[in-house]
Structures are given as C-alpha cells and as structure tokens.
C-alpha cells in the first residue's frame, strides 16, 4: 500500500520535472517567434497592407446569436476570400466580453504576438475597457482606411465618440443603433392613454392600466441597460453631467429620479419584476406568445426582420418617442496582439464599403443602419441604398426622432450596481 503511493509520487515528480522543462522550452520558443514576426502593417501604405493580407486567416470574434447576422458575416467572408485572398473565420460568441477575456488571458501569459483574436465586434464598455488596458492595435488606423472617406462623421457624432470615449481611430464603425418600441396593432395598445406611450413616464402610466404586459431584460444585458439609460436621460436634470465619469458623491442625487421612476414602474412589470426576460430575442418570443404587449429593440429594422422570420405576427409596428431615444454606433477593433493585422484591416475596410453597407441595411439580410453619408457616395452607390425596401414595420429615418447619445460607461456600471442592490438581490 505504502509503496504504491510512493511509486505514484515518484512517477508524478518525474512528470512534473519533464513538464517544467517543456514549459521553459515553450516560453523560449514564443520569445523567439516574437522577434521574427513583429512587423505591424501600415494602413497609410494600403497596397502593402493588401499584399500582406493575402493568404491570412482573420478570426473575427462576433456575437453569434442571430442567424441572419451570421449569414451576413459568412457572405463577407466569401467576398473577402475571392477579392483579397483573406479567409474570415467567424468565432461565434454569446458575449463579446469573452473575446476581451481571451486577450486579457493572453496578455497575462505574456503572449504579445500571435494572439487568437484578430477582429472584434465591439462598442461601449468593452471598448472603453480594452482601450484603457492598452489591449488595442494602435496608433489609430480606422481613419486611414480607404473607405473612411464615405463615413458620416459630420452627422453621426457617435462614430468618433463611443459612449463619450473618443475612438481615436482605434475602432472602425460598422453600423448604427437606435432604440425603437414595438406594439401589435391587433391589441388596443392606445386605449390606456388615448395614444401610444411617448416617454418612459408614459410607459409607467400605461403599465398601471396594463399590468404584467411590459418588461425589460435585467442589466447587465445591454438591451436592459439601454432601457435604464433611456430613463436616466429622460429624468436627469443636467445631461452634461452624464458626459463626465460618474462622481460617487453626486451619484445618488443625479440618479434619484431614475430610481423613483423605476420604483413606480416595477409593481406593474411582467411577473411583477420578480423575473426578467433574458435578452432581446426572449422579449420577441414573449411578444409572439402574447405575454408582453410593448417591447423595444436597438435596431429600427428588428420588427420587420422578426416578421420576415415568422417570429412576430405581421401586425406588429414600430414607434418611438418625440423627445428622443438612445442611439449609438457599433464598431470593429483589432487587438494589440492580433496574428493577422493586415487581414483584419482589409476586412474592416471591406465592411465599410458602400456595397457591404448597403447589403447590411437590407432588412431581408440584416437591416442594420449604415454609418455612411449618402452625400459622399456616387449615384450608383446611393441608388443601392435608395432601392432598399425597409419593410412594413420599419420607421423611415426621418420618423426615428432625435438621438440621445450614450452616457459615460462609468454611469452604467454605477447604475447596474445600484439596480442589482435594489431589485436583483431578493429583498
């Protein structure tokens, strides 16, 4: 008995020694390869970027929860392969933070080249976090992409300022987002107020007459957090405070009206606020089942999209608030240790092309609003956008109402924490 254990230990110790040796060799090798391949592409010399990109494989880490978006990315991959010899592999994430975690783990392990992530679909908190930790390919490259010349920097301030954080060319815009609300015209949603709700204050009143028919995903789900930001923007007395990082001393006063409104809303939420829909698609399902009567999305085309995919009845229509709703831009970024930086640059540039952007805005493909300025396009390119049928349930750009910009990410962190303390801790 004793001897078996001893011999086990000897075997183990021998293995441990061999293991340490292997570790040392592996580390030595990775340092050597670091010296060999550390040549960052220069986006100012685009021809050399395209040349370097040929034959590279770009691992594009992007949320994989929507089949139509996955199909669009697959299409972009086929085009990139054919035109530039770049292979695009879609790494389907259930949460973008997982890709951030991968880069963090690589930095922890000292893997400063040859990283697993080449391109990330990103914005807001994740971008702020990666920028602050120095995890992004720099200096800024996005404004040196050839297709940057079409980008609507003039009218869309969220393209250069992501959640109040200057992008500084560290991420390239991909699409736009704006909060819109949906209702089903089969149900008499206007009965309670004599009209559709026109603010979150109206929603509180509406829910009093229709208890259990409205809800929002619990933060930190980003759609749920976006709803909280909408309430914050509507209730705060001085919006300029939201442009700065939150100060602990002021937080309680500034956020007090937000939580007053939530306190008034919550008793009439779906399940009385004791459970929340998991995410946006779960809200769609609940609307299709007739559990929720008003839901909201962050893409104006979502309702038409859901109808086309049999997820919602074709009687659903969109509406928005005349006082404005939250809007932002989503981007692609390249980690500092990406293996295929040239390929990632070529992919980012292709995603910005009028052709790729017009296809993306087609509601039968994805329906994601473009980041390009129509005035900067030539007639053929503009015609592609104008020919798009946005779908029966989609509001025209002129009907979308004013856009309220995102607060500094630190506000969301503070609000999510306070939200959890008040409503998410089983009191």
């Amino acid at each position, binding site marked *: 008995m004793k001897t*078996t254990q001893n011999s086990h230990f000897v075997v183990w110790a021998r293995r441990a020694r061999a293991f340490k040796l292997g570790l040392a060799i592996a580390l030595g090798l990775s340092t050597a390869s670091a010296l060999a391949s550390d040549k960052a592409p220069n986006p100012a010399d685009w021809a050399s970027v395209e040349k370097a990109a040929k034959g590279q494989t770009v691992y594009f880490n992007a949320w994989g929860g929507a089949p139509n978006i996955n199909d669009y990315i697959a299409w972009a991959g086929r085009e990139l392969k054919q035109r530039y010899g770049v292979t695009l592999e879609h790494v389907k994430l259930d949460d973008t933070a997982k890709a951030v975690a991968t880069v963090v783990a690589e930095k922890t392990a000292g893997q400063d080249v040859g990283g697993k992530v080449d391109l990330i679909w990103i914005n807001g*908190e994740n971008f702020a976090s990666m920028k602050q930790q120095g995890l992004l390919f720099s200096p800024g490259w996005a404004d040196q992409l050839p297709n940057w010349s079409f980008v609507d920097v003039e009218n869309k301030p969220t393209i250069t300022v992501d959640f109040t954080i200057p992008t500084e060319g560290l991420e390239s815009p991909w699409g736009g987002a704006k909060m819109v609300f949906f209702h089903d015209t089969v149900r008499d949603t206007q009965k309670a107020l004599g009209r559709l709700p026109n603010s979150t204050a109206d929603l509180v009143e509406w829910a009093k007459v229709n208890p259990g028919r409205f809800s929002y995903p619990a933060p930190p789900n980003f759609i749920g957090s976006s709803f909280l930001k909408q309430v914050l923007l509507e209730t705060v007395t001085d919006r300029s405070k939201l442009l700065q990082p939150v100060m602990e001393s002021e937080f309680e006063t500034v956020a007090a009206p937000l939580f007053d409104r939530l306190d008034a809303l919550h008793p009439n939420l779906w399940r009385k606020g004791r*459970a929340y829909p998991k*995410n946006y698609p779960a809200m*769609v399902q609940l609307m299709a089942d*007739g559990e929720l009567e008003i839901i909201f999305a962050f893409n104006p085309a979502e309702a038409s999209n859901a109808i086309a995919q049999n997820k919602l009845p074709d009687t659903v229509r969109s509406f928005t608030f005349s006082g404005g709703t939250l809007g932002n831009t989503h981007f692609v970024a390249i980690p500092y240790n990406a293996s295929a930086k040239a390929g990632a640059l070529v992919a980012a540039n292709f995603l910005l092309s009028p052709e790729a952007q017009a296809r993306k805005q087609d509601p039968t493909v994805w329906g994601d609003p473009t980041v390009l300025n129509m005035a900067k396009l030539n007639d053929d390119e503009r015609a592609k956008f104008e020919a798009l049928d946005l779908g029966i349930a989609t509001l025209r750009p002129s009907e979308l109402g004013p856009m309220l910009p995102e607060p500094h990410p630190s506000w969301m962190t503070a609000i999510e924490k306070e939200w959890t303390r008040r409503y998410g801790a089983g009191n």
Partner: protein
Amino acid sequence: MSFLAAAPGFAIAILVLPVCCGLLATILPAFGYMPALGGNTWSLGPFEELLAMPGIGRSAGLSLFSALITTLISVTLVAFFVGGWRGTRSFARMQQFLSPLLSVPHAAAAFGLAFMIAPSGFLMRLFSPWATGLDRPPDWLILNDPLGLAMIAGLVIKEVPFLLLVTLAALPQTKAGQFDRLTQSMGYGRLSGFLFVTWPQIYRQIRLAVFAVIAYASSVVDVAIILGPSTPSTLAVRLTEWMSDADLALRFVGSAGALLQLGLTLMALAIWLVLERFGRAVSHSLRAQGRRLARDGAVRWFAMVATALLALLVFSGLAVLALWSVAGFWAFPDLAPNALSFDTWNRASLSLGGPMANTLFIGGVATAVATLLALACLEREWRTGRTGGSRALWFIYLPLIVPQVSFVFGLKVFFLLIGWDATMAAMVLVHLVFVLPYVFLSLSDPWRAWDPRYASVAAGLGASPNRLFWRIRLPMLLKPALVALAVGFAVSVGQYLPTLLLGSGRISTITTEAVALSAGGDRRVIGVYAFLQMVLPFVVFVIAAAVPALLFRNRRAMGGQA
C-alpha cells in the same frame, strides 16, 4: 505489463495536474495578484468586495439549498422506484423508457421542460382557451422563480436517469433477488425489504455518483441560466458573469467567488454526510422496531407515477422542441404552428460540418483513452491487490468536486503559458479530465464487486492473468464497460465552459455552437441544436446497449437481464 504499471500514475496526473494548475491561477487573483490587470499586491480586497456584492448570501444559499434538495429528491425517487418495482414488467418498460434520457444534455432537457411548463408552454396550450378561458398566457411566475424550484425540477429530471443507471449497474453485484424472497417471506413489504437489506449494499457502490450529483448541482451554470432564479442568480451563474464582465476589475471578485463556490460545494457534501447518518439512523430504528411496512402500495405507486411523469414531461418537451425547430409562426394558444419551415435546419446544415467533426473526434479520443486507462488501473488493482485506498478515491473525486467554474479560467491562462491554447491536444486533455472520473465511476463499482470465485476457477484451470482478463472478466463486464464508454462520450459532448475557453473559439463543438446560438433565445434555433446535441450521445448509448445483447444473445445471464 509496463502499460499496466504506468496507468495509475498517468491517470492521477490527468486528474490532478490540470485542476491544481487551474486552481493556482484562480487563487492568485482571488488574493489580488494578477499582474496583467495591475494586481501586484496581496490583499483580501477581492473577498471584501465579494461579500459586499448585493444578495451574495442569497445566491450562495440558493446554490447550497438547490443542490441538496435536488440530490435528496433524486436519490429517494430512484431508491423507491427500484425498490418498489424491480423485477416487474412495468419496471423493465420504464427502464427502456428512461435510459435514453441519460444521453440528453442538461441544457436540452432544461429547454424541453421550459417549453412544457411555462405559462405560454405546451401544457397551458393544451387546456386553453377551452378550460382556462385564456387567450393570452397568464402572468404566472413558473420559470426562474426566486426559490429555484423550476431549476431543481430541471436538475432532477436529468439526475434520476443518471442515478438509476448506476443503480442498475450495481444491482447485479448484490443478491437482490434472494434477499427479496427472504424479506418477503418474513412479512416485509416489497419496498421496506429492499430498503433495509439491498439498498445499503447498492448505496455503497453508487455513493461516488451521488457525490458527483451534489457537486454538479451546486455549481451548474447552463441549467441555472435557463430555469434558475435571476433576482439574484445562483453563485455559479453570477461568478461566470463576473469572469466575463467588460469591467476587468471584476475578474478579481470572480476569482474570489470561484473559491467561495469551492467552499460551498464542500459544505454541501459535508451536509450530505450528515443526512446519510440521519438516514441510517432512521432505517436502523425502523428495523429495530421490527416494523414490516407491508402496506406500501401507495408509496410504490407514487414512485412509479412520479418517475413516469418525469420521463413523459421530458420526452414531450423534447418533442415540442423538435416541432419548434420546423415551426413557422406559432401563436398562443395554438397547439401547432401555422406552417412548417425547414429554414432553420437549412441554415444550420451549412455550418455544421466542422463542429460535428470536432465533437466526434474530441469525444471519441477522450472517451477511448479514459476507458483504456480506467480498465488498466482496475486490472492492475486486481492483480496487485492494492486499491490505492481513500487517497486514490480523492484523486478521482477531484475534478468532480472542484467546480468547473473554479479552475477552468485559470487553466486557460496556464495553457497559454505553455503554448497549448486552442490545440486539439489541449482540448482532448481537458475533456479527459472530466470524462475519466465518470468512466471510472461507472466502471469501478461493478468491476470491484465482480465475484472473484470465477477467477479462482479459471486460475485453477491454468489460465494466465491475461487470458483471465480477455476471456472471463472483460466479457462478463462488457456491459458496464460499454455503458462507461457511452457515459464518457455523453459527458464530453456536454462540456461547454472548458471547450469554449480552451478552444478560444477556434475549436467549436455542437455544444458551444448550441449555447452561442441559443443566447439569441430563438426557440427554432434551440430546437435544432438541442436535437443534435441529444442525438449524438444517444447513438452511442444505443450501440452500448446493442453490442452485449448481440454478442451474448445465446447467454441469458450476460445479455438481456438488468
């Protein structure tokens, strides 16, 4: 012979090294040390922050409570069902009915259950509007209830088939049939006779599996997300969220939470040990009183009905899930979709090849290696007579007791260090860590309980140890060996967190695809992937069941019987 001699050391390395390396890389940040994130000093700060998290006590309590209740219900139901009905024709039928359930991944079963019992679920549709008068689902809190009852139900439906299978594997090693006749001739009820005499012998053999159930239930993530409470969630769910939060400072709190999770799981096991003593004491006092408890009809029927309902619920849930995968628009309270559409399947088929091949390869290699190692260890144990004692048991327990969330993130950092990240070798290795214990657990009890007199007879006839193994022991124990293989494969297919983290998204399996796509919450997509997740291991189980029946079709005692 040299392979046999090396096997135990090799197995221990596989079981222990990854867990220890992963734990180490979790413990350091839990105490504030993680240089890449600016943590260079040691402190208790992460633990202070953890304890200051709102509702943390409730989250921890939920994990503990639900793990114990799940295990208690599952073990009791299995004991009563086997005790009350073993040897009857309805038992054999139920057994055939239940065993495919084992191959259904937890997440798929949980979705199936949700599709049935939700206010908009199939059960409510069955009775609406003609009986309930409802044309819209009621605002009832059934799923995600704050006490975690739906989650407990979701765990019980998966743990009962698992425990039933290990019980049935252990049963032939007891003289249950003779004991039954004896106790019944003395006037004991069918159930009480079984519980007093046969069950303690069985329980001794399946105890490891019961412990695995407790550890799993206390730290499960996917089922808890689908069915569990959210205000607040269980500890495991919350710490997974912290570990993947955009705010990188939360990694420290997550690491501290991972250690708390470890403590909680150990506490649940400790409480279970107390419950075991309590159960023994009750049984002892009943026996000492000489109570025969012959009128057990109601309890037996209850066990039968509960087990049958459970199986029915899961199967109809899975059927509804399959129907959703081909559904057009499907409104409440319609019993069927307004149209059928294969769009979701067509879309999925375009991208399925890679993940499918990876799942088969990783699962196949890991399971084959695990079964080979387990057989070699057990054979060596038999030949040398040295079992390794309780210390060897701890090695096997380790990956099952240390919750995955506690060490997998750390393990990823470690693999990065040695350049193994996102390689097939690392993937097979990490699957092996989880597959090997289950294979060993399923195999060792029937193996050790094998009657040694067969060996004596064979040795007396001049058979060598190798011949004894190939001609007598392996054929006699082929059924548990194949079941162990199938269990191992099912475990591999079900692995989510390790596959996702160590594959770095470059190696995806059916399960990582399923979870990523079901993040979208689309019932049609969930239907497709849950169906596929379920079919792969099921095929292996069918093979495991068919092979001995085929090989030994002319030997009644080795083939068909339980």
